């Protein structure tokens, strides 16, 4: 059976700094995988390699069985199938919410304008922000902006979603609304890979938790196994530090 994401012996360096030291790891279709680990452990870099925002140095990445590290791979086509949500939202500030959701639909997927607007409305409804359709991003709270960013990714009808610390830039009281949207999405069977510091969310929503440190996968397994009874000393140490604060 082909995995949705299948990473083999992935290496990535920035200059002399080796950030990923041979990562092996898979995500099945419909699975929610949370990646935990201290900052600098390489988890964001791993995520960004999956849609080639970063180019890996060696190893293979198969998305639905297709090798995307291939030099002839159609990167734009690949990316339009993978939704990505960033820590800093990265909404387009010069476009309204609606335009944020339609610009790539009409430009990249060549959907007719009416269809694109219909899909945009549907996705905004899913994240509970239909009333903000004509606002500019500057008028949204952080939580709203991140929900719009999720809706923007969803309106491409991607096969999977990557989340790069989606709640790390939010005020504490706004984290919940974003996690709610992600929880719903997971419940609907979306394939999701989430780099996060939200242990509670991982425990509740993830099918599998991956713990990374220093460029390698230290430990992976069910949330119960990794978060409640970790085998590795590094995982225990990390969890102690996170749960104390």
């Amino acid at each position: 059976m082909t995995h949705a994401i299948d990473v083999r012996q992935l290496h990535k360096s920035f200059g002399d700094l080796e950030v990923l030291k041979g990562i092996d790891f898979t995500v099945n279709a419909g699975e929610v995988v949370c990646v935990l680990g201290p900052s600098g452990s390489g988890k964001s870099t791993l995520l960004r390699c999956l849609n080639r925002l970063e180019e890996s140095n060696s190893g293979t990445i198969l998305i639905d069985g297709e090798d995307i590290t291939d030099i002839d791979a159609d990167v734009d086509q690949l990316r339009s199938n993978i939704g990505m949500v960033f820590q800093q939202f990265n909404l387009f500030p010069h476009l309204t919410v609606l335009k944020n959701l339609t610009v790539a639909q009409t430009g990249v997927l060549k959907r007719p304008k009416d269809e694109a607007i219909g899909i945009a409305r549907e996705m905004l409804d899913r994240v509970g922000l239909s009333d903000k359709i004509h606002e500019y991003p500057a008028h949204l709270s952080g939580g709203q902006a991140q929900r719009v960013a999720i809706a923007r990714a969803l309106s491409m009808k991607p096969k999977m979603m990557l989340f790069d610390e989606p709640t790390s830039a939010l005020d504490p009281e706004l984290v919940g609304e974003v996690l709610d949207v992600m929880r719903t999405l997971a419940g609907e069977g979306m394939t999701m890979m989430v780099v996060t510091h939200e242990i509670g969310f991982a425990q509740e929503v993830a099918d599998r938790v991956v713990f990374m440190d220093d460029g390698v996968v230290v430990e992976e397994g069910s949330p119960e196994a990794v978060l409640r009874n970790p085998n590795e000393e590094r995982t225990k140490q990390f969890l102690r530090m996170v749960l104390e604060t």
Partner: protein
Amino acid sequence: MVRPLARFRTMTSLTPRQRARYYQIAMYSAAAVITVVVVFAADWSKIQKNFFNPEIAAEMFPEVITSAVKNTALYTLLSFVLGMVLALGLALMRLSSLKAFRAFAIGYIELFRGLPALITLLFVGFGLPIAFSGFRIPGGVLGRGSVGLALVAGAYMAETIRAGIEAVPKGQTEAARSLGMSQTRTMFTIILPQAFRIIIPPLTNELVLLIKDTSLFFILGSTPGTKELTKFARDFMNAERNATPLTVVAALYLLITLPLTFLVRRLERSAAKAR
């Protein structure tokens, strides 16, 4: 024992506030004296006759508006539009991943920023027909002058546009690319619209500079129909042996440039607020 600061104060017997006040009074007195000297020393009747002669000013109208202002505006706009197109191309080359493009853009920008605009105008007006025998840029003074100024303005504006593009956060490119947009589409639909919003104030400044630089067009020769403000004023001044035409066109230049500079200031303020 007397502390140093206290001793200083007794010596001058002035508080800082008093000192500031006396300093102010001294400055105002000096300004008043200079004004009085200038007012009494100047020959006001002569100044009035030579610089503010209403009959000569009246003679300039309506041609100074219908012909000279119109030509200045036309030269400026065409130079600006051509320069902008050139600058955009140069800025994109400057940021290209191809080394040859980057090298060309840098070479071009350094060359034309380093030359006086007058030299470039002379090259375009008189050098090109020699180099390419008989080749002339079409459109007469308008065409040749505007191309010449655009070559210069393009070099300056290219650096402005590049700075604008670089000021757009990297996350914008990443978000657009992650949605599957190509590099070109990302540049034109996401990055450039934001970059131009950032650089409207410096571009308006560039426009003001161009308005003034069109006064160099005289070097290309002129016919009665192609004179811009400065040339028009100089010819009028020579004919009348009077400097009033200079005063008139100076006022007209300011009438055009001052609203633009006010606009820049307002745009800068609102841009600062939006950030």
